[in-house]
């Protein structure tokens, strides 16, 4: 049984109601920007259909495209490495760094390396790791994990960032974002100019050319990668796409879905190593082929990590990314994580109202609510759900399956609510009522009223 569920972890986030409301609104603001950007593109729905179909095709011929990508990359002078899991990925990276005597590695945002827990591993092995995306640097200095795949420090207020920078960078305690970003700029540019190696993620790997496309707004991936003598790009094997022309489709969708921008400030295409420098790519499985082998859940591999499903999700917005306990939080995380470790993450598919908003905004049209529903069934069948929930569901199922039982149960509940308020909806018995009050019970049900008034039935 799972020690910490999404619901229990969210309790601490929800303790501060003012902050919860602020977090909710901050993300809703991003969702609204996404809507404006999407509605400004007349062919938006056509692009989503195309993106979905391109991904479906790519995943169905994934081996061929991975081999083609590897071949082209090798022709370009890129050294390709393969890693079955996180441990192998980390060992490959450390091996490259050790071979070149690297002491400082600068990194641009990479969710894959978060997933692999690369930073603590490298630090244990004597490599200084510097995150160069502002949000990533904030959570790194705070000793935290990112709470959002696109906006890692969305859970932190500017006053907290000011206090953190004051403590770690020696700045004055000024919460002005312009002042704080300027301080980070000076700090990070200095570190990047003296780094021995740079590591970036990969947004898209093009099989046709071997190009690796990296998108940032800050320009940090490019500053780091073009200054250091060694560049390592880490990619999940789901990042490959067949041809350059497909970039047109995905890039039109990615930033608009993520932040409402028409495109990120920088869309960098790494093809060959810089003259005199090395370029490596590490192609990582870490549970992805296992997910490929589950036809019901294969679609989760289509994800381009825009974060739109997080921004729109009423549960994510009101529970925060850390409540999910995984690198990729939110609806997409809730369909990916159970495939990695069902016992540890069985509560995540239940962290949803199944409202379907995630599927409506997904640029590659993943049926997230459908997959959440199916993961719930897997979790129940695998005994990963508490006896209370199973018992409650069985009783509810039996009640709703029979008209007479439903009517009798309704009468009983109305009677108890009137005669013994506090029994139904007692917080100790019914978690739902812990932060809600039931309305006063009516004397009769609608069906009873209808029968009396109209004499029908």
């Amino acid at each position, binding site marked *: 049984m799972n020690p910490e569920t999404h619901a229990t972890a969210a309790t601490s986030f929800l303790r501060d109601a003012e902050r919860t409301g602020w977090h909710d609104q901050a993300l809703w603001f991003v969702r609204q920007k996404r809507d404006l950007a999407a509605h400004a593109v007349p062919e938006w729905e056509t692009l989503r259909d195309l993106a979905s179909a391109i991904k479906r095709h790519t995943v169905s011929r994934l081996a061929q495209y991975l081999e083609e990508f590897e071949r082209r990359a090798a022709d370009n002078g890129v050294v390709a490495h393969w890693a079955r899991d996180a441990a192998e990925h980390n060992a490959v990276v450390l091996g490259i760094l050790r071979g070149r005597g690297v002491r400082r590695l600068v990194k641009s945002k990479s969710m894959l390396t978060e997933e692999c827990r690369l930073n603590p591993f490298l630090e244990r092995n004597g490599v200084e790791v510097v995150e160069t995306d502002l949000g990533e640097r904030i959570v790194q200095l705070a000793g935290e994990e990112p709470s959002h795949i696109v906006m890692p420090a969305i859970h932190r207020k500017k006053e907290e960032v000011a206090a953190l920078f004051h403590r770690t960078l020696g700045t004055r305690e000024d919460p002005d974002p312009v002042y704080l970003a300027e301080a980070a700029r000076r700090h990070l540019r200095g570190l990047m100019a003296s780094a021995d190696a740079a590591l970036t993620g990969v947004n898209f790997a093009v099989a046709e050319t071997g190009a690796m496309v990296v998108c940032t707004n800050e320009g940090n991936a490019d500053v780091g990668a073009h200054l250091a003598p060694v560049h390592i790009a880490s990619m999940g094997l789901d990042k490959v796409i067949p041809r350059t022309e497909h970039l047109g489709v995905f890039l039109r969708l990615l930033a608009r879905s993520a932040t409402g*921008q028409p495109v990120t400030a920088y869309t960098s295409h790494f093809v060959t190593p810089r003259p005199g420098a090395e370029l490596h790519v590490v192609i990582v499985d870490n549970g992805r082929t296992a997910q490929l082998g589950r036809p019901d859940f294969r679609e989760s591999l289509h994800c381009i990590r825009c974060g739109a499903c997080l921004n729109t999700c009423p549960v994510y917005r009101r529970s925060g990314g850390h409540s999910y306990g995984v690198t990729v939080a939110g609806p997409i995380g809730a369909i990916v994580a159970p495939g990695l470790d069902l016992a540890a993450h069985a509560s995540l598919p239940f962290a949803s109202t199944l409202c379907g908003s995630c599927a409506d905004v997904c640029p590659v049209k993943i049926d997230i609510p459908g997959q959440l529903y199916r993961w719930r069934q897997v979790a129940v069948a695998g005994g990963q759900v508490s006896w209370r929930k199973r018992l409650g569901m069985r009783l509810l199922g039996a009640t709703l399956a029979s008209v007479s039982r439903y009517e009798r149960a309704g009468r009983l509940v109305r009677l108890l609510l009137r005669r013994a308020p506090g029994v139904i909806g007692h917080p100790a018995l019914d978690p739902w009522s812990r932060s809600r009050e039931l309305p006063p019970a009516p004397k009769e049900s609608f069906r009873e009223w209808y029968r009396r008034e109209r004499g029908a039935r």
Partner: protein
Amino acid sequence: MSRDAILAAVRAYQGDERPLPAIPAFESESHDALLARFKAALGQVGGRWVERTGGRDLAEIIRSHYPDAASIVSAVDEPPSSTLAIAADTAPAELVRVELAVLRGRLGVAENAAVWVDEAQLLHRALPFVAEHCVLLLDPGDLVTDMHAAYAALAGRRSGWGAFISGPSKTADIEQSLVIGAQGPRTLLVVLDEPGRSLRTRAG
């Protein structure tokens, strides 16, 4: 070997082939509409533009926009000339001292103000990112409507590295407050060349 094990697993699990769709051509626009949309998009992403009309001197445009820039690196064949010598082997400590980079963009995209630059037009890949300010020269005749048209126009152009640049460097990582000038350039100015000028320059 991990490579073979991974590929074998992928092959075993990937299922039957699903069709790859063709990408249709979306509506194109007149040149005037493209230019207007490019300018509007550039404003939206925090960049600025200036039109080079009547044979206006590039050096003068740059002086008027960046009167204080002391270290200038230009990869363009006309004044102002570089005050720092940058080559592929220039050290990072030198590169981060560049105040102003002047580069030629190969094409511009109207829908998002992205300008393509690649190795053929650069002295060092880091230049568009480490410079405090960035000026991109663009021939308005090289504007295309969207990213599909952009990749079609770039097809066959071989380069070891290239990027779309849309406005200056920016971040919103602190409370969603937009700050222009994150780790890269603080400003981006697109100089819209006289039509056809870049063709003459490239030919010469």
